[in-house]
């Protein structure tokens, strides 16, 4: 295959991935669609394959190598320091070497994002606390605390998952759809476990908040600020059972570049930390209980049920068990992650030898397909990328993959919207999805307007 058509394919893939990225994009909920921050990881990977980028690739490879070989377990604060120092170093180098040197501001920023995503995806298994659960003996205080808090939070959420909106002073003026929305927001939030890069996790957090605001916007409340938002956010977290939430929040806070962690992102990350903190310390005093008898009945009923579930979970291995649960959050499937295609490219760049310099273990690929769609898809993709030997085959596989992933993502958005608005015409929902590029926050907003 000649160079030109290869380049075209690369662009095509980039285009398709960009569409997905925008759906996930930080600014996906903005009214002004032109205003989106440029973000294209595929482009970054293409740039990294440019021979002139060799020094950047070398520096990065050497950093990654040293990070995992010099010491098996850095403390969380050492990790933050090492990674931030490297970022600062490599950002200054980006300004010296083509193809990065001449980039405009937006594309240069994209390259910085690319570096963060690349290194954090590679170092995920050393930095994300649940990945370190097996090494609990050697863990430093911060990572160990993440794991404890994950467990405490999960226990508290289980204990109080029966709470009614009024227990949290969530306004009773809300539409009867509150549970559907809380669930949907929780689902968006739960996707943090499907990604490795701090930015991608942050996007999931923002999307969850967008769903809540979509909901608040159409409720007949006079106050749509934090007085309404925070209780609703807590309610959504409580009802959603997101695994390893504390670890995820701390990971984002530690490893997302400080200059990206300001403004809106910082606010919503803090709000989620606040919500998690509230749940961690939840007791009867923190709630508004007008009907004690009703509360105690609900509490006792739930406790009985929760104890049974816990007993079942502890005796069984397999779906729902703790081991299974850790296996799942530790290894986000490559599709969902930085997209499988990109992974194959990354591996290409970072392991010229047949044996990868860094182990790219992905248990989800080899694990039995216990749940249907994502894992089957990822296995299929893993097979297809593994089978693809030549570059052109790789490119073709990547294009196909990007298409599949986009389709899958769109189906997911459509399905959740449909379950949220069962009374609405399917074609209408579909039209809205297409018009709004399947961006969940905006779609929710439009559909709420239409349904009112």
């Amino acid at each position, binding site marked *: 295959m000649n160079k030109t058509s290869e380049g075209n394919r690369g662009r095509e893939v980039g285009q398709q991935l960009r569409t997905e990225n925008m759906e996930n994009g930080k600014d996906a909920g*903005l009214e002004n669609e032109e205003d989106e921050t440029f973000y294209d990881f595929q482009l970054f990977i293409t740039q990294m394959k440019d021979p002139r980028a060799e020094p950047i690739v070398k520096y990065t490879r050497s950093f990654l190598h040293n990070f995992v070989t010099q010491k098996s377990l850095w403390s969380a604060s050492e990790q933050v320091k090492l990674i931030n120092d490297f970022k600062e170093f490599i950002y200054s180098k980006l300004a010296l070497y083509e193809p990065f040197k001449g980039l405009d501001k937006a594309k240069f920023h994209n390259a910085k994002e690319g570096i963060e995503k690349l290194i954090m995806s590679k170092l995920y298994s050393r930095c994300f606390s649940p990945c370190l659960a097996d090494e609990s003996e050697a863990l430093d205080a911060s990572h160990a605390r993440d794991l404890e808090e994950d467990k405490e939070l999960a226990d508290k959420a289980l204990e109080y998952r029966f709470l009614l909106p009024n227990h949290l002073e969530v306004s009773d003026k809300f539409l009867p759809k509150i549970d559907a929305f809380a669930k949907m927001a929780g689902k968006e939030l739960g996707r943090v476990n499907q990604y490795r890069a701090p930015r991608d996790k942050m996007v999931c957090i923002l999307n969850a908040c967008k769903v809540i605001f979509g909901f608040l916007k159409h409720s007949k409340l006079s106050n749509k*600020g934090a007085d309404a938002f925070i209780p609703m956010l807590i309610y959504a977290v409580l009802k959603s059972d997101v695994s390893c939430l504390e670890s995820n929040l701390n990971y984002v806070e530690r490893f997302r570049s400080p200059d990206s962690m300001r403004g809106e992102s910082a606010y919503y990350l803090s709000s989620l930390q606040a919500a998690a*903190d509230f749940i961690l310390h939840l007791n009867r005093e923190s709630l508004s209980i007008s009907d004690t008898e009703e509360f105690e009945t609900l509490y006792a009923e739930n406790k009985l049920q929760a104890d049974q579930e816990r007993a079942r979970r502890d005796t069984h291995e397999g779906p729902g068990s703790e081991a299974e649960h850790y296996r799942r959050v530790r290894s986000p499937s490559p599709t969902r992650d930085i997209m499988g295609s990109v992974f194959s490219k990354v591996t290409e760049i970072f392991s010229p030898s047949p044996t990868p310099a860094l182990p790219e273990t992905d248990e989800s690929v080899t694990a039995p397909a216990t749940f249907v769609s994502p894992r089957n898809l990822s296995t299929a993709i893993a097979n297809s990328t593994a089978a693809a030997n030549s570059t052109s085959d790789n490119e073709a596989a990547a294009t196909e993959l990007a298409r599949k992933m986009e389709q899958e993502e769109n189906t997911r958005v459509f399905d959740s919207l449909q379950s949220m608005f069962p009374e609405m015409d399917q074609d209408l929902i579909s039209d809205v999805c297409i018009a709004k590029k399947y961006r969940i926050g905006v779609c929710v907003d439009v559909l709420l307007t239409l349904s009112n």
Partner: protein
Amino acid sequence: MLQFKLVLLGDSSVGKSSIVHRFVKDSFDEFRESTIGAAFLSQTIKLENEPDVTIKFEIWDTAGQERYKSLAPMYYRNANAALVVYDVTQADSLAKARSWVEELKSKVSDKDLVICLVGNKVDLCEDGSEPKAVEKEDAESYAAEHGLLFHEVSAKSGSGVSAVFQQIGSKLYAQKKDSLAASSQQRNTVNVELQRPSTNDATSCCS
């Protein structure tokens, strides 16, 4: 442009969010940034007394219900300014505002934190629908005693709202200017970009 984080504190009934919505609504559109929801808002203003200085406020709203009070530290950490709001028609809302001020004073180590005490809903007293429960003089003297800025406003009519942000902006700018002057002497890099004509250096704005 200078960026500052401003946190909103006050009981849920005092209308703290409304003050910010009024501020954003009455400010120039060209400086508005769309945000995903009303709990975080960002608005840029030009200082009236320093027309070539633009200031961007990142405004962090907090939940005012008593049960969420313990979450406030996650919001006011690293804040440059705090708007502590009470309702002029509710005497106990001033007491709560005072407890916020005390908390800020004891928990925030940054001595440059600008705290502004704001009495909202003066429109209700002006149109006679509610008696005034907190006299301006009382709140004002409390503010003076504790080194706070003070304003009475009506989020409903908009009266006094922009003055709050102008004054906070000016004070923050003055502080920044001082620290900038101090650090530029040491040739340190400061995490601030002053948008000024290129002929001026960062220190020449000190008059």
